[in-house]
């Protein structure tokens, strides 16, 4: 074989036109709305001189999020229509199924909530600028790409789009060195883990000859694979990358530090949208494409889930910083979602979807309250800063209590059903041990939520002179929304659960 052989080949004299794949623009509409919205926002902001325009940016971002949800509606109808059903487009790179649409809505909601919390924060911290909104929107675009990715490389790009924007958001409080520290840590570890993820894709590519999930599935179903070392090693490395994104133990180390150091409303987005997108990717890869390897990955996901549940619960209990507590608590929640993924059944996916939907509102609301309690400088996050909040801000304390109870899984809140569905799915799939472990961990973490509640109600404020909190309008709207969903889904979970049931992921061929 000649080394420079190909250079000597002549170019074809008459290049035949390349047949490009058919593109269903409607299928990409939610994504286009998000990206387009971000671009318009950026363009628009260059004409606005006033520093007071943040309100407008917030409103516009929410509008974009609502627009993305609106764009989902006709697609959802189409997908649920028996004649049409789920389909793929862009040459099989984009899958439009109930699952991707469901996750798109969850992500869009997370965008809106995050924007509402960012609004006042920027003014309070003298950081007024349009970029956080643009970055959240673009990051959300990455999340949407991940949840509809039918190709590993698309998934990787989605992951990077999602992450890189978030690295910036983490480091964006320019007056706090801890914010930059969070950015550096998140970035270095994120780049490290995505290198592993990419290597995993490479090995899967070598093992199956393709990166397209549909083709991978086809390959597994048509070929009897005897030598699957590459596929298995690739799967292991991809699990590392995705496990990092969803903060599964032992890939969780960044979470507490980054959550604590980052500007709190950005954490709202990290904990809700980013985590949801990570799980979307995880489910697409594991449950859809590597279904044939379920017996191989189930035990390891089992182990990850157990470790995640326990490390999250146990470490949360010993913290003194509320942001850190909630970071560990979110690790614990990730463990619960992993319990659903581990089931590797439609019911498990459904439960995971319900969990993610409910959790998005819960955690966004929780960090929303934390944003407000953080006060100017975003530094009042010790447990002592929450003492006697019920005295000075009874409404806010009540809202936080509700979120905490819901996270503990108390009935009549969405958190209860989230945990319930996940555990039912695990029991039905035969993972009774995992169900038991999950519930044990929730017993431990109940103590944590109680600890915060107790300091809300039981103690007197430490410093009398602390500036009085006020709840800004935008944050108030977001909190009201979170409370409403938490309660409604707690009393009548059917609405979300049935939608989640229709949102089964499917790998459909191009059509």
């Amino acid at each position: 074989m000649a080394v420079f052989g190909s250079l000597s080949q002549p170019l074809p004299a008459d290049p035949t036109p390349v047949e490009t794949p058919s593109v269903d623009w409607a299928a990409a509409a939610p994504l286009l709305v998000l990206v387009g919205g971000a671009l318009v926002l950026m363009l628009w902001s260059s004409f606005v001189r006033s520093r007071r325009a943040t309100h407008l940016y917030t409103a516009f971002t929410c509008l974009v999020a609502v627009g993305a949800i609106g764009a989902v509606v006709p697609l959802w109808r189409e997908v649920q229509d028996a004649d049409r059903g789920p389909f793929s487009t862009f040459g099989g790179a984009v899958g439009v199924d109930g699952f991707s649409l469901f996750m798109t809505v969850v992500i869009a909601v997370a965008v809106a909530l995050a924007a509402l919390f960012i609004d006042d924060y920027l003014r309070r911290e003298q950081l007024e600028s349009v970029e956080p909104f643009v970055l959240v929107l673009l990051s959300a675009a990455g999340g949407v790409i991940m949840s509809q990715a039918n190709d590993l490389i698309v998934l990787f790009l989605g992951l990077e789009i999602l992450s890189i924007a978030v690295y910036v958001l983490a480091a964006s409080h320019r007056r706090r060195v801890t914010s930059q520290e969070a950015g550096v840590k998140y970035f270095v570890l994120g780049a490290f883990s995505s290198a592993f993820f990419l290597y995993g894709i490479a090995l899967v590519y070598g093992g199956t000859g393709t990166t397209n999930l549909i083709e991978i599935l086809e390959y597994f179903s048509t070929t009897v694979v005897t030598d699957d070392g590459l596929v298995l090693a690739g799967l292991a490395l991809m699990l590392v990358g995705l496990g990092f994104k969803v903060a599964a133990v032992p890939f969780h180390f960044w979470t507490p530090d980054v959550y604590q150091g980052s500007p709190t409303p950005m954490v709202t987005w990290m904990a809700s949208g980013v985590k949801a997108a990570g799980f979307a990717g995880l489910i697409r890869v594991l449950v859809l494409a590597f279904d044939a390897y379920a017996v191989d990955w189930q035990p390891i996901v089992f182990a990850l889930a157990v470790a995640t549940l326990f490390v999250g619960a146990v470490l949360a209990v010993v913290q003194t910083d509320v942001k850190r507590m909630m970071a560990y608590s979110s690790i614990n929640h990730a463990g619960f979602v992993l319990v659903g993924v581990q089931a590797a059944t439609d019911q498990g996916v459904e439960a995971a979807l319900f969990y993610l939907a409910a959790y998005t509102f819960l955690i966004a609301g929780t960090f929303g309250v934390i944003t407000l309690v953080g006060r100017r400088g975003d530094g009042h996050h010790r447990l002592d800063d929450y003492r006697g909040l019920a005295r000075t801000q009874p409404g806010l304390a009540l809202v936080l209590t509700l979120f905490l109870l819901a996270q503990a899984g108390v009935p009549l809140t969405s958190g209860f059903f989230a945990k319930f569905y996940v555990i039912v799915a695990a029991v039905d799939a035969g993972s009774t041990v995992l169900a038991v472990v999950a519930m044990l961990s929730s017993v431990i973490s109940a103590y944590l939520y109680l600890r915060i509640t107790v300091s809300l109600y039981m103690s007197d404020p430490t410093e009398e002179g602390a500036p009085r909190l006020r709840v800004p309008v935008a944050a108030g709207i977001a909190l009201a929304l979170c409370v409403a969903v938490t309660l409604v889904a707690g009393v009548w979970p059917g609405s979300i659960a049935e939608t989640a049931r229709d949102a089964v992921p499917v790998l459909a061929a191009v059509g």
Partner: protein
Amino acid sequence: MVELVVFAVAAAACLVGALGVVFSENPVHAALSLVGTLFGIAVLFVAQEANFLAAVQVIVYAGAIVVLILFVLMLLGVDRVENLRVEPLVGQRAAAAVLSLGVLALVVGALASTGYEVTGPVGELDVTVADVNRLGESLFTDYLFAFEITSVLLVIAVVGAITLARRPRGEEIVDPGQAEREAQLARRMAEAEARAGGDGAGEGEGAEEAEGAEAGAAGEAAAEEVTR
């Protein structure tokens, strides 16, 4: 035979470069070593009939990315020599060595399990078409969507850089306990350097120790600054 020589030279360049990145005390040298690896890989691309990628590799990586890194190094003056004999985290080196060897062994094990062969279906490549044409066709058919969304990535890079480049308004915010922690970290570093300095008895030790002391002083100065 030619291929063997090409591979041997390029692989050597890659490995020497890679080791250079890891073991150069001077970050500028590390960056230059990185260029060695990048060139080596570009050569290996050519050896595997990926000529276009080789060109892109040299232009983008060596030409843009490394230059950017070097630019930052020089701009911020962070080209201070890193004393690699010092390891403040106990056991970090050994654990890192074990784990990276583990990764290597396991990956090679996976590759070996299939006899270093791919297990996927081998395609039919039209060898008469130049790789640029094939690549172009691939990018605009199978990878059309991926190609389009890379634009989002680039937009984020620009917006992100702008966000972070802004100068902060107002004083730096220091949390309670933060100054103590910073002083503690600086002390830890100074102790580690002192330990390393005590162990070795080579020449040029004095210069390094002075540097270490300077670093400690700088850390303390930073801590003091924060306390203010």
